[in-house]
């Protein structure tokens, strides 16, 4: 992991196992399937539910600064706590939590490389014991919106070619063949992608065991599609969690300075009246299909 631009943002399963109960470390499981934690989790880990604790449950938004502070305080996270996040689906929503923590200025937050899948595949200990952290008084910074893209910025990127758009959904979602991942509810009116977006499915950044590709392979993956850090990048998916995974890879593992997550993603763009939509398979960087 040492070749990455910010290697300290990733820890191995072995490291997490050794340090999960350290007094200044808080391990948190964040899953797509929010009940997976109850089946068994990393000893010492608490859980955050992405759909109840990591978003505003009334309007569509991330947590407010106040709600973020409340969650951290109740979770026993202090401003100097090392937070290690992991979860299912190769850390989709763990990366979503990482992105929010960075937006609110948490200094030391890390992902457990390979997530829940790797932990289980390695036959590491699981427990159903739920820790009861001591409450802290957490103080967050104002949200750093340089990490987040809103619709007008994406529209500007399209009209002015000011940023590279990376669509990290599956090829079938990108082409418009399906409106949502197979088996999941369709939450948009139209299928396809934002015109000009490059198709780089999030999973290409991972090996079979769920860990990230080594630095050189990761860099080559994105460079092949013209994403080399020379211009701002906006990543999107369907609701912003898969693109958090890619945002993490680009921003923290490759060290590209200007990378944003468009969490409105396809469930925003694909429902807009009059928005331009392109359909069909991905063009290669050279222009062919």
């Amino acid at each position, binding site marked *: 992991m040492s070749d990455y631009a910010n290697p300290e943002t990733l820890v191995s399963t072995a490291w997490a196992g050794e340090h999960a109960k350290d007094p200044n470390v808080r391990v948190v499981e964040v899953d*797509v*399937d929010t*009940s*997976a934690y109850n*089946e*068994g989790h990393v000893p010492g880990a608490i859980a955050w539910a992405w759909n109840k604790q990591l978003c505003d449950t009334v309007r569509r938004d991330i947590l407010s600064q106040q709600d973020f502070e409340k969650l951290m305080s109740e979770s026993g996270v202090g401003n100097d706590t090392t937070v290690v996040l992991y979860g*299912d*689906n*190769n850390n989709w929503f763990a990366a979503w939590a990482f992105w929010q923590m960075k937006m609110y200025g948490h200094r030391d937050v890390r992902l457990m490389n390979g997530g829940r*899948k790797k932990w*289980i*595949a390695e*036959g*590491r*200990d*699981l*427990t159903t014991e739920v820790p009861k952290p001591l409450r802290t008084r957490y103080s967050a910074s104002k949200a750093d919106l340089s990490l987040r893209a809103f619709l007008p910025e994406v529209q500007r990127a399209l009209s002015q070619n000011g940023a590279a758009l990376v669509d990290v*959904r*599956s*090829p*079938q*979602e990108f082409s*418009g*063949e*399906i*409106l*949502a*991942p*197979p*088996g*999941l509810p*369709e939450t948009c009116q139209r*299928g396809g992608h934002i015109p000009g977006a490059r198709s780089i*499915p*999030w*999973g290409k950044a991972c090996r079979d065991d769920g860990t990230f590709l080594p630095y050189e392979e990761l860099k080559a993956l994105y460079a092949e599609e013209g994403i080399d850090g020379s211009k701002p990048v906006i990543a999107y998916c369907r609701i912003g969690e*898969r693109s958090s995974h890619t945002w993490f890879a680009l921003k923290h593992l490759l060290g590209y300075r200007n990378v944003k997550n468009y969490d409105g993603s396809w469930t925003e763009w694909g429902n807009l009246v009059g928005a331009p939509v392109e359909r069909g398979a991905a063009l290669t960087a050279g222009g062919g299909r």
Partner: protein
Amino acid sequence: MKPEAYSERQVEVDGWQVNLTSYQLGASFHCKADNVSPGAWLARTTGTTRQEAEQKALERARQLLSRTRRQ
């Protein structure tokens, strides 16, 4: 407790590739079905045998995948 007998395999359900992950935890077998692309969770089940857990996961996956429309 430690998960044992971890296994991963791919099967086709209703024309979609599904990844089945199963393992034993104590006296139970646990199974998780994900669609291969993009890798999203479809079902998580338990059973007294691996076969039972996988069967339940496949049934649930089939129900969900049959609703997916191709445009």
